[in-house]
């Protein structure tokens, strides 16, 4: 009774090591490996060996005389741990570390190069995940007005991602296009994971969650270029801005997914696209497709994304999206007397709406069928553009882990050319060599103002180096 804490401390320490003392906590009993055939005969633990408990002057005599039985392997590991700790305390740089011998019955495991590193650890410290995605594609087109035809386009994306604090993650994606001399931060945002149960908060520059594919980067698309209604009505790639976004998982039970995203973004007051009101019947301005997009500069965004599984094999998703805010658009009205362009900037309000539905069916051996449709509606106010809408329908069949084919049908109005529409149907084949490397072929036949029955072909190579992740991709 004179040294109750010492006795208690020792008992607790031994309880974690000794099966005899840890009968009430079997999960703390080390599971010893069983002999592997062909391995050297394991050293037989001496079950009856008395526990070599170091006598302590502070230990009462009754406790000191108590016999504790532990397996030899555990005892030897304990001794090695003590030696390692001693070596660590001396702190002599370069001091030889006692090699951690494998557990006796793990000899064969060790012989084949088993690592004893901590699970999940990597061989570096405090480095974020750094990755690079290269996306190269060649476009063939029968539309001779298309300035991008018969040329190679390359885009690179550098991802730097990591945790900066428990439950706080930082993602940066820097994108460069050497052909167009563009280089910039596409996304850079902090995510507070689990700010409260079911709530994530994202702050920084990021893609607004508008539409089912609104947050996907191009390398995650199931096609080689952005779908036409998104290009015409939303943005060339995505609605993006600096701001804050809240993702809240609604308390709808464990079988039904419902996430409400609410965000406020500012994309600066740069015009989002350029109109040609001098000749509204030609949305191409004589050059490549002039898809104006929304041009939203300051906007609020809301998306309700719902999903549930229908049995083990099917998943259905529905989404409603809405963005509203101030839009800026360049308006080319003609040429001045000196031949210079007359361009003014039009500003106004804009409402964008979207509805999407997806159905996925998983079959055996990694086969998967995906059916997806998205509809977008563009509704301007005080802008020199017209109310427009568009949709696409996508079917994708992954017939094994490495191959998938897709069929894409798109139809969209031009916001800058009242009454003009374009539609296209594409056949897509993707060969996924692994998670980081795929090749895609996309053949398109379509109609657009001034060019009916045009044909396009795209060959796309996407490569990835390093760990690169996006939420739910």
């Amino acid at each position, binding site marked *: 009774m004179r040294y109750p804490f010492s006795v208690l401390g020792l008992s607790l320490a031994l309880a974690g090591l000794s099966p005899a003392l840890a009968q009430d906590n079997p*999960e703390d009993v080390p599971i010893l490996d069983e002999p592997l055939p062909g391995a050297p005969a394991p050293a037989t633990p001496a079950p009856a060996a008395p526990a070599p408990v170091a006598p302590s002057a502070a230990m009462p005599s009754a406790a000191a005389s108590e016999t504790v039985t532990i397996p030899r392997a555990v005892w030897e590991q304990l001794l090695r741990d003590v030696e390692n700790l001693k070596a660590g305390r001396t702190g002599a740089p370069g001091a030889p570390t006692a090699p951690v011998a494998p557990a006796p019955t793990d000899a064969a495991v060790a012989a084949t190069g088993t690592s004893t590193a901590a699970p999940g650890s990597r061989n570096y410290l405090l480095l974020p995940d750094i990755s690079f995605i290269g996306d190269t594609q060649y476009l063939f087109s029968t539309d001779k007005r298309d300035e991008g035809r018969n040329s190679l386009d390359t885009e690179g994306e550098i991802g730097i991602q990591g945790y900066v604090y428990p439950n706080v993650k930082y993602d940066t994606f820097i994108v460069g296009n050497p052909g167009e001399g563009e280089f910039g931060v596409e996304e850079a945002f902090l995510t507070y994971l689990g700010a409260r149960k079911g709530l994530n908060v994202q702050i920084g520059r990021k893609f607004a969650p508008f539409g089912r594919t609104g947050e996907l980067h191009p390398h995650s698309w199931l096609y080689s270029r952005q779908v036409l209604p998104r290009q015409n009505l939303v943005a060339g790639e995505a609605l993006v801005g600096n701001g804050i976004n809240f993702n809240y998982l609604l308390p709808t039970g*464990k079988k039904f997914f419902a996430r409400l995203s609410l965000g406020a973004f500012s994309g600066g007051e740069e015009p989002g696209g350029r109109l040609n009101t001098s000749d509204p019947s030609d949305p191409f301005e004589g050059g490549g497709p002039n898809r104006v997009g929304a041009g939203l500069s300051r906007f609020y965004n809301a998306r309700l994304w719902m999903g549930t599984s229908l049995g083990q094999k099917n998943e259905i998703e529905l989404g409603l999206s809405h963005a509203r805010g101030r839009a800026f658009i360049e308006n080319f009205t003609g040429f001045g007397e000196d031949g210079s362009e007359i361009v003014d900037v039009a500003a106004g309000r804009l409402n964008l709406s979207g509805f999407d539905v997806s159905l996925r069916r998983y079959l055996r051996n990694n086969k998967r069928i995906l059916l997806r449709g998205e509809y977008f509606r563009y509704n301007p106010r005080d802008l020199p553009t017209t109310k427009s809408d568009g949709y696409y329908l996508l079917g994708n069949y992954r017939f094994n882990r490495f191959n998938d084919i897709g069929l894409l049908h798109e139809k969209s109005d031009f916001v800058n050319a009242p009454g003009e529409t374009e539609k296209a149907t594409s056949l897509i084949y993707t060969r996924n060599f692994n998670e980081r490397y795929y090749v895609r072929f996309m053949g398109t036949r379509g109609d657009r103002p001034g060019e009916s029955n045009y044909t396009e072909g795209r060959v796309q190579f996407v490569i990835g180096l390093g760990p690169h992740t996006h939420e739910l991709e």
Partner: protein
Amino acid sequence: MKLSKLLFLGALLFWVQPARAATEVVASTPELAAISKAVGGGKVSVYSIAKPNQDYHAIEPRPSDVSRIARADLVVRAGLSLDVWMDSLMNAAGNGNLNRGGRGYVDASTGIPRIETPSGSISGASGDVHPEGNPHYLYDPIYAKRAAQNIVRGLIRVDAGNASAYRANYVAFNRAIDNKMDDWRRALAPYAGRPIVTYHLSYNYFLRRFGIRQYGTLEPKPGIPPSAAHLSQLASNMKRDRVRGVLIEGIYPRRFADLIKRQSGANYEVGPYSVQSYTGQGYINLIDNLVARTRAALG
């Protein structure tokens, strides 16, 4: 009278508390769901993100999985980069307790002695190599016990009230494995040292446990589909070394095994990839089946 009725009703409400809901466990793979159920028994309900006979390396995150994780008490993952897709789901779920290091987070690979850990640098040229080593440790029943140990620790962390039940289930699961180990060892003892070919390195922990030699794989490198040149070389080596055993994991295409069969004359068997029920017995049946298919392949 009125007051006494109210008191009675209040007491009744206090007494008739709703039964505590079962601890929700979300596992990344069906095997982990089965072991979690074995350890958790009736006190837990389990859900597996990957479904049986899906390739665990390539799971598409589904929104409905997010809501499962958001409402879970415990997440059990295989680790060793097998289920990296879990990170995406867990981040979207916004349940701080389940993030890495949280009390509801279990990496079942903790303490597993790993094999095939790359010693040099790895790149895409190495195939889909896992930096932390071969992640298919659950085909080794002894390592399943270790996974169970990690799971029971997690369960006790999140539901200490049922610790004694979890411990009892855990001991029973260990005992069941120990009892079956003798049968499995006896069944495979005649084939100790014999070489076998598989499609992927999925069964290597299992084969090593029972002393069977992994001779080669139909994949030239992990995750890379078989090439004609590789298969031809493999078949010629098999003929030279008189290798007769080929065991193909059930999720992979058979046509390459057919090709090897034609070229080398070795028959092949199709081995199980997943448990068929999320119970301790489901796990034992998986190993039973694997033992039987291995015997058939080598017999």
